[in-house]
């Protein structure tokens, strides 16, 4: 038996008591090897070993050995703190590269300890004594990771421990610097909780990036945007633009598009302003237009910019230096992109050309809601606006002018504002479109103040986040009126158009409206101030708070509370004092604002502290409003991690308090918007048939937000939900609240002609400011219906739009490697014949189906005959409802069969892929299936499955075929636009060719 083992450590332990030091050493070294087996025995002798460690007379090695031994025993005893402190005493004997549980555990412990010490040192700004031995261990660990090539670990530890020097070392020494850098960016966004520290990390990353021989400018610029360093971005862009190579220019354009996607208006503007002014004439013209358009409303800017872009060739003639010319030309382009105009225009074209909205749904809704029920009536108008958001298609309104005219007072306000949603992004013609409704300066043109206010709000929506050209006009309108409805509209419009610019002058104007202490105007002013100051965390917040305490009007307090919350957007810890102040306030409305402040300050961070606080308020506050908002706010905090939300709010969704349930529904709706997450749907499903009407409303809206753009093929519950909505809308006995919810839900479900989704994160995982703000204000519709339109800010088109060097959309095919049915548009509802349309949308009932339905109904009636008459009635109703549903279903399938037969044989198997043509609808779930064709003429500058992608042309000399020619390009002769503008009231004259028709001036029969 070679491996005879001792059965006890007693002998060695006894040896420790020997007077001879060499014997003790012998015993220690053997014990150290045996400790894994005999630690229980050794643990009784720990005091002896400790005294050996502390004995100054021993030589160092021996004392370290003793320390190591004690450390191991403590480790086995689960006393990690003691274990660590002795391991530190063991000095070099503690081998970080040893592959044992002991070493792993202690290393983890040491790193934790070190990291927490370091962050404490940084956070409290004082020198915390860090054991140099601890530091040595962590450094040894880092070195080892780096030498072993485990760079990701090293980076993780370095970030955690705030050792930026080591982080830099790890990155520069790694073999794939680009890869490590992008990994590091991801890590810093998802795991670094403190904003300031994240900034430090990103600054370092930018520094490292710039040292690289071939920097990844896309990532650098993203970082810089996060750091708010427009100067750096501008200089990079300038460098790229000056380059000889066309590829570099393409890259610069791509960077610009990526930046625009993050919707950081103030940043984009300052980048743009830092770029040098181009010298060529076309640009001057464009700029002139830009500036003049603000002051001279009669000059139509639409065509000029576009034309200038298209015809640089003509103007080049005047120039001598071709390099300068190309540079100038590129500058023009990039400025266009940075101002957001290019992407907005392209989006508009896309949404218009791909509009697949289903007017029949609206028709059904319109016919089923009672005329006199103004809530449902305006809900239908909202639904229409949302359904056609950004498509410029207002056919429905046009066809139902009579019906529309029933909207009075505030309903008229929102009806007019709805046009803004429909024409969202129609920057060039926005003014002229809304002209008929705008206040006619001083003439007192007899227009209702409601439609005038609505028009100003609409202008804000059209120019949301890109209000360069409209700000001045809105300010003038605001100043020249003292009607509170118009002030209301103007305030909202200004807030939207100047979102996040922190423009002092506008702020002062809005503030003066606030100080008139009019409830209606003051509320809008409060929100508007918040919108202006989004994310600035200025001193002005305390000014607003002071006024909120002063005023008597609840509306104003609420507006201000939300406004204050908006100012701290994304500030994380920086907002803590303000949040604390608000959440401790006596006034529930201010506390309510505090919840929003928490939501927005920590939006998308999934910060544990914020979640804990919100949950605390959700169960402990005395005000229902505050509790509801606290739950709702969870949705904002968690949207970067949607899978979490259903789990966290699942208990709350079963609360006895309907307000909490409502909040839970919307929280899921917000954070899981557009994901179609199965758990989210399962959580919402029971809530859609809640006993309380407003919970049903919230659940329906939330469900629609979750299911937007999810096809029935990928989740069958989508179809069921559509049928449920229809049933609720058709049901005469349904509560108004839930009916309104259902109508809005149908609007959201088919939003933007079904080409948009709700997205709070950009593709680079940055928060989309506008979208988050939009949803936050949208969730205020509980108090003020017109705010529903803010949801349009959260819509982002789901499109792949490939662009060539000239920012035109060439014909370009690529492949979606999935069954087409998975991602197709929902089938249009069946065409009803006129006489049955009201009751049964499906007119193609076969007699047998009818008979079946009837038989079923009768049978059920009979079965329930004994019951009370009331019960009988309800049962028969439900029976008929069911019968109807099944009848519809069969009608549906028949219809489908019919169409399928026309197209192809129904039995033919579905192809496994489809070819999409640029620009194409690519829904988020589809993105992973997108592939490029191999022998394609174009190659994208960066690999991205959706959004704006610049394409490199491999065959430059062949003629290009352009798509999107049927789009509402602004090639309209300027004359027409000018004419339209001058004619003013006769807006119908603007209809040109296939351009989207601006609406007629509706006549209100008020």
């Amino acid at each position: 038996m070679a491996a005879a083992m001792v059965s006890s450590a007693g002998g060695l332990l006894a040896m420790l008591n020997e007077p001879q030091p060499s014997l003790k050493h012998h015993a220690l070294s053997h014990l150290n090897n045996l400790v894994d087996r005999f630690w229980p025995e050794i643990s009784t002798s720990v005091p002896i070993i400790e005294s050996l460690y502390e004995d100054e007379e021993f030589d160092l090695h021996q004392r370290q050995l003793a320390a190591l031994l004690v450390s191991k025993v403590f480790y086995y005893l689960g006393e990690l703190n003691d274990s660590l402190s002795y391991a530190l005493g063991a000095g070099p004997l503690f081998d970080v590269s040893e592959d044992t549980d002991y070493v792993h555990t202690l290393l983890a412990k040491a790193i934790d300890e070190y990291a927490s010490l370091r962050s404490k040192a940084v956070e409290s700004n004082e020198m915390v004594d860090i054991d140099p031995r601890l530091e040595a261990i962590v450094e040894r660990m880092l070195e080892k990771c780096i030498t072993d090539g485990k760079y990701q670990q090293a980076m993780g530890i370095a970030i955690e421990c705030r050792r930026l020097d080591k982080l830099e070392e790890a990155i520069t020494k790694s073999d794939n610097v680009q890869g490590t850098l992008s990994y590091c960016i991801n890590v810093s966004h998802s795991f670094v909780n403190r904003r300031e520290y994240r900034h430090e990390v990103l600054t370092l990353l930018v520094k490292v990036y710039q040292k690289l021989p071939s920097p990844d400018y896309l990532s650098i610029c993203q970082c810089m945007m996060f750091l708010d360093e427009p100067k750096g971005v501008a200089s990079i862009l300038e460098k790229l633009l000056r380059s000889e190579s066309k590829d570099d220019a393409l890259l610069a354009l791509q960077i610009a598009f990526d930046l625009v996607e993050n919707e950081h208006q103030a940043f984009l503007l300052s980048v743009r302003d830092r770029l040098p002014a181009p010298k060529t004439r076309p640009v001057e013209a464009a700029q002139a237009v830009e500036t003049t358009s603000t002051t001279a409303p009669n000059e139509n800017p639409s065509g000029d910019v576009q034309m200038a872009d298209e015809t640089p060739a003509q103007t080049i003639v005047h120039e001598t230096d071709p390099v300068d010319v190309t540079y100038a030309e590129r500058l023009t382009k990039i400025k266009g992109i940075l101002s957001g105009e290019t992407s907005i225009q392209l989006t508009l074209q896309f949404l218009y050309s791909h509009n697949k909205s289903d007017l029949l749904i609206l028709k059904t809704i319109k016919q089923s809601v009672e005329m006199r029920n103004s809530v449902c009536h305006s809900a239908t108008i909202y639904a229409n606006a949302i359904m056609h958001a950004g498509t410029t298609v207002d056919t429905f309104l046009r066809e139902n002018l009579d019906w529309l005219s029933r909207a009075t007072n505030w309903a008229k306000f929102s009806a007019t504002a709805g046009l803004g949603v429909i024409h969202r992004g129609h920057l060039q013609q926005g003014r002229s479109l809304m002209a008929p409704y705008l206040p006619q300066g001083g003439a007192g043109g007899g227009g209702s103040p409601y439609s005038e206010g609505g028009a100003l709000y609409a202008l804000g929506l059209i120019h949301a986040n890109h209000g360069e050209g409209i700000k001045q006009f809105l300010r003038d309108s605001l100043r020249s009126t003292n009607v509170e409805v118009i002030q209301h509209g103007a305030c909202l419009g200004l807030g939207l158009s100047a979102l996040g610019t922190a423009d002092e002058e506008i702020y002062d104007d809005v503030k003066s409206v606030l100080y008139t202490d009019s409830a209606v105007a003051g509320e809008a002013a409060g929100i508007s101030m918040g919108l202006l100051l989004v994310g600035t965390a200025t001193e002005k917040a305390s000014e607003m708070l002071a006024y909120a305490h002063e005023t008597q009007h609840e509306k104003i307090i609420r507006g201000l509370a939300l406004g204050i919350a908006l100012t701290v957007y994304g500030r994380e810890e920086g907002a803590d004092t303000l949040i604390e102040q608000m959440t401790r306030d006596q006034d529930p409305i201010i506390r309510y604002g505090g919840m929003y402040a928490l939501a927005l300050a920590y939006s998308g961070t999934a910060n544990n502290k914020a979640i804990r606080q919100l949950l605390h308020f959700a169960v402990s506050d005395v005000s229902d409003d505050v509790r509801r908002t606290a739950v709702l706010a969870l949705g904002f905090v968690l949207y970067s991690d949607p899978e979490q939300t259903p789990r966290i709010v699942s208990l709350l969704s079963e609360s006895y308090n309907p307000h909490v349930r409502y909040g839970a529904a919307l929280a899921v709706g917000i954070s899981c918007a557009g994901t179609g997450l199965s758990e989210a749907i399962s959580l919402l499903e029971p809530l859609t048939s809640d006993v309380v009407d407003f919970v049903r409303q919230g659940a329906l809206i939330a469900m629609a937000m979750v299911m937007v753009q999810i096809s029935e093929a990928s989740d069958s519950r989508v179809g069921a939900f559509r049928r449920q909505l229809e049933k609720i809308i058709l049901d005469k006995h349904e509560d108004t609240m839930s009916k309104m919810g259902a109508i809005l839900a149908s609007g959201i479900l088919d939003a933007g002609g079904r080409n948009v989704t709700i997205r709070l994160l950009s593709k680079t995982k940055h928060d989309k400011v506008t979208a988050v703000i939009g949803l936050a204000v949208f969730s205020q519709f509980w108090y003020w219906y017109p705010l529903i339109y803010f949801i349009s800010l959260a819509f982002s088109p789901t499109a792949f739009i490939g662009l060539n060097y000239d920012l035109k959309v060439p014909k370009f095919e690529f492949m979606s490697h999935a069954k087409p049915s998975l991602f197709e548009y929902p089938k249009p509802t069946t065409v009803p014949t006129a006489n049955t349309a009201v009751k049964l949308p499906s007119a193609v009932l076969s007699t047998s189906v009818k008979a079946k339905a009837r038989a079923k109904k009768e049978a059920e009636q009979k079965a329930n005959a004994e019951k009370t008459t009331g019960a009988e009635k309800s049962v028969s109703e439900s029976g008929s409802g069911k019968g109807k549903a099944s009848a519809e279903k069969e009608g549906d399938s028949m219809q489908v069969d019919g169409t399928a037969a026309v197209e192809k044989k129904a039995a033919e198997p579905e192809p496994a892929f489809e070819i999409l043509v640029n620009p194409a609808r690519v829904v988020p779930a589809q993105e992973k299936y997108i592939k490029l064709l191999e022998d394609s003429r174009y190659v994208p500058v960066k690999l991205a499955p959706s959004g704006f992608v610049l394409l490199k042309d491999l065959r430059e000399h062949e003629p290009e075929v352009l798509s999107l020619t049927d789009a509402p390009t602004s090639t309209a002769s300027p004359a027409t636009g000018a004419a339209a503008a001058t004619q003013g009231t006769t807006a119908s004259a603007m209809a040109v060719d296939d351009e989207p028709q601006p609406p007629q001036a509706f006549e209100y029969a008020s």
Partner: protein
Amino acid sequence: MDPQLTEVSQQFERFKAAFVRKDYNSCSDLLSQLKVLLTKFTSLPPLFENTPNAVQELTIARDIYEHAVVLSVKTEDQDAFERDFFQLKPYYVDARNRLPPSPQENLILGLNLLRLLVQNRIAEFHTELELLSSATLDNPCIKHAVELEQSFMEGAYNRVLSARQTAPDATYVYFMDLLAKTIRDEIAGCSEKAYDYVSIGDARQMLLFSSDQELFTYVTEEHPEWEVKDGFVVFQKAKETAPCKEIPSLQLINQTLSYARELERIV
């Protein structure tokens, strides 16, 4: 032959010579040198490597430690005894199937049992006993210790004292003397609990002293709290144990109420 082994055996011879001469001081010196030398043998516990000289090395090491144990008895050093015995033990337990059993084994084991008895470490005594085979239990050395323990437990202290004469080995005498003292302590502890006071004569008889003088020295040395007056030994009653701590009722009530409130509030 391995030079180290030779060196050890030469040293050991010297040690044995000194041992026979009863020159215990030089014995101790030699012994510690030997122990250091032994640490160089890898065949010894805890490594048990299979070196060519393993058997000789193990045998000589065992021999050395056995001598060390006996030496510690001679020098009346209990700590050293314990140390040496523990170091010796692996040779008996773990090296059993490598070495021929040692003639001294039972003697030493018996000594150890006795030591535990003397130190009143009854639990360890029984643990040791459990480890022995039934055959060894019949060995006179072991049997002696076991019987002593039984009498000790029964309280038949006179039998324990008389066993001194039947000790199987001369080395046992040292422990038997110590045992008498252990017994005396035990009796003293019992009487303290049992009586308030005892007459001097009875006390002397109970505590197995031959003269009153011895009794008095014992009292002053070991139990200074006892009083000797009027021909009686008065034991100081152990102080009343402090009453149980009061239950923090108010605090508990408050806590429970707050839990109830929280429960109501949740969801």
